[in-house]
């Protein structure tokens, strides 16, 4: 009995330093944010006042919030499938004996190593009206100048292109690892049975890649809500909130307008959203995945 208690104490001593920091900067702020969202923003000497769900009611009436939510949904629904499919295609390409394979793999992966804010600067230049490469390319096809980031119709798609460019190469790595770990005798057996390439891909490769796909999806979902650096640099949410994503709106509300109560309320909504997505991904998708 004394021995057991000794091990318990030792274990807690080993865990405690990391656990304290982890809870202090992840769980505690999450709870504190929830509490803050039920109070008003303190102004000057006026202390915060309890208002219940009033902030949430105000949020429901905030058109910018709905705009941000809508933008983020579109952003996620486009960038996640696009980057995952491209990542898979890249991995399949680089996994075969291709001329210049190392060079190609490097081309796909390099954007991943750049800070998002450097990527944003580069693409900002890319999208510049008249001078930017983008306008020069479409100019070849006879289209005139276009303010890609200044037009509400093209600003969000432009941001999505940046995100896909940055992410796809990262996810490719995980697909590549999974492809290389696949036993070669599977391929031999399938070729003896005369299965076509497409069939083999659909019936064997794809199901075997499911755990990787789940992992990549989880990361892609988190990133679609976590990474807004390019919004800060490229558009500041504009024009007319066309590129405002949820986390950017939190940043703007909390640190440019200093309305901490509303920022807390927004954060709670984002956390609830991420939580729901997590439950969905592990509960529904997870059950359909066959782990080794």
């Amino acid at each position, binding site marked *: 009995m004394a021995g057991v208690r000794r091990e318990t104490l030792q274990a807690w001593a080993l865990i405690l330093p990391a656990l304290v920091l982890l809870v202090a900067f992840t769980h505690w702020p999450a709870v504190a944010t929830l509490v803050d969202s039920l109070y008003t923003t303190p102004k000057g000497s006026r202390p915060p006042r309890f208002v219940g769900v009033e902030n949430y009611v105000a949020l429901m009436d905030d058109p910018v919030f709905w705009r941000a939510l809508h933008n983020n949904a579109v952003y996620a629904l486009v960038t996640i499938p696009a980057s995952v499919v491209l990542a898979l295609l*890249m991995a399949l*390409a680089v996994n075969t004996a291709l001329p210049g394979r190392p060079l190609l793999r490097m081309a796909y992966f390099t954007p991943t190593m750049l*800070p998002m804010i450097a990527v944003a600067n580069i693409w900002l230049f890319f999208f510049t009206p008249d001078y930017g490469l983008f306008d020069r390319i479409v100019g070849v096809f006879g289209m005139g100048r276009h303010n890609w980031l200044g037009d509400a119709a093209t600003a969000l798609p432009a941001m999505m292109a940046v995100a896909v460019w940055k992410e796809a190469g990262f996810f490719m790595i995980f697909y590549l690892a999974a492809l290389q770990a696949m036993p070669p005798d599977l391929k031999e057996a399938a070729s003896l049975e005369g299965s076509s390439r497409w069939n083999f891909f659909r019936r064997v490769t794809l199901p075997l890649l499911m755990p990787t796909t789940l992992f990549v999806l989880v990361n892609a979902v988190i990133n679609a809500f*976590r990474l807004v*650096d390019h919004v800060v640099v490229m558009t500041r949410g504009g024009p007319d909130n066309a590129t405002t994503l949820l986390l950017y709106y939190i940043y703007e509300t909390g640190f440019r307008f200093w309305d901490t109560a509303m920022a807390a309320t927004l954060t709670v909504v984002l956390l609830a959203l991420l939580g729901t997505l997590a439950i969905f991904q592990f509960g529904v998708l997870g059950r359909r995945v066959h782990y080794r």
Partner: protein
Amino acid sequence: MSGRAIGLQPARIRAIGMAPIGTRWLEIVGAWMLGLIWVLPLLYAVWTAFHPAAYATRFDLFAPLTLHNIQLAWEAAPFARYFLNTTILVTLILVAQFVLCTPAAFAFARMEFPGRDFVFAIVLLQLMVMPDVLLVGNYRTMVHLGLVDTILAIALPYLGSAFGIFLLRQTFRMVPQELDDAARLEGCSLLGRLWRVYVPLAKPTYIAYGLVSVSYHWNNFLWPLVITNSVTTRPLTVGLSIFASTDQGIDWSIITAATLMTSGPLLIAFLLFQRQFVQSFMRAGIR
């Protein structure tokens, strides 16, 4: 009907990896087109940064190369200080993460105690709810701690890392129990076993985790932007964004030069140790 089916058979027996020549050719062209699209923005930036401003948007194979833009950018903002800040930040985070996550991972991997699985689940929650999202709450904590505008404040939320604990725990569980038992018989203490048996065997995981951590925090932006407001604390990413937005007369040559300069060390390290990097990211991803 059956005759035709049999007649088709020989054509279909083909090594799977081998598509018809035409298809194969298409695939190669497609893969390279995609590759080209992928490097184009980067090549464009490199072109602009290393040529005189007059050639920023004009393509001339014989345009003179120059380091002038880099020099101008370097002198226009305190980038030396930003480099120092980022280096301090990244080192601080890396060392603290190793020191904090190693014992925790060991306890979760090899020790029995009540509530272990529950506490581990609490830890794993952080994989989904990352500190990046909790700007508002963490900012308030830093105000209370009096740490606003310090490098420590940038680092603190990331030190207790669920990702690190998880990764090391998986590795420690693969260490043969016999090695642990042998060390115990030799009279090795708990920490001694951790230090002499587990840590050396987990070296590849430490390298992988280290590379992932360094590149993540070298590139991190939003939280440092919120919590810093002076030259002596700002990391490179925040410094770069301020430099690029304070109306440089929008001289793209200088802005791209600064952009490449700040990503340079990581990019060069990546190109030199490409295999190591790629393998590390793979290792960090396999769960």
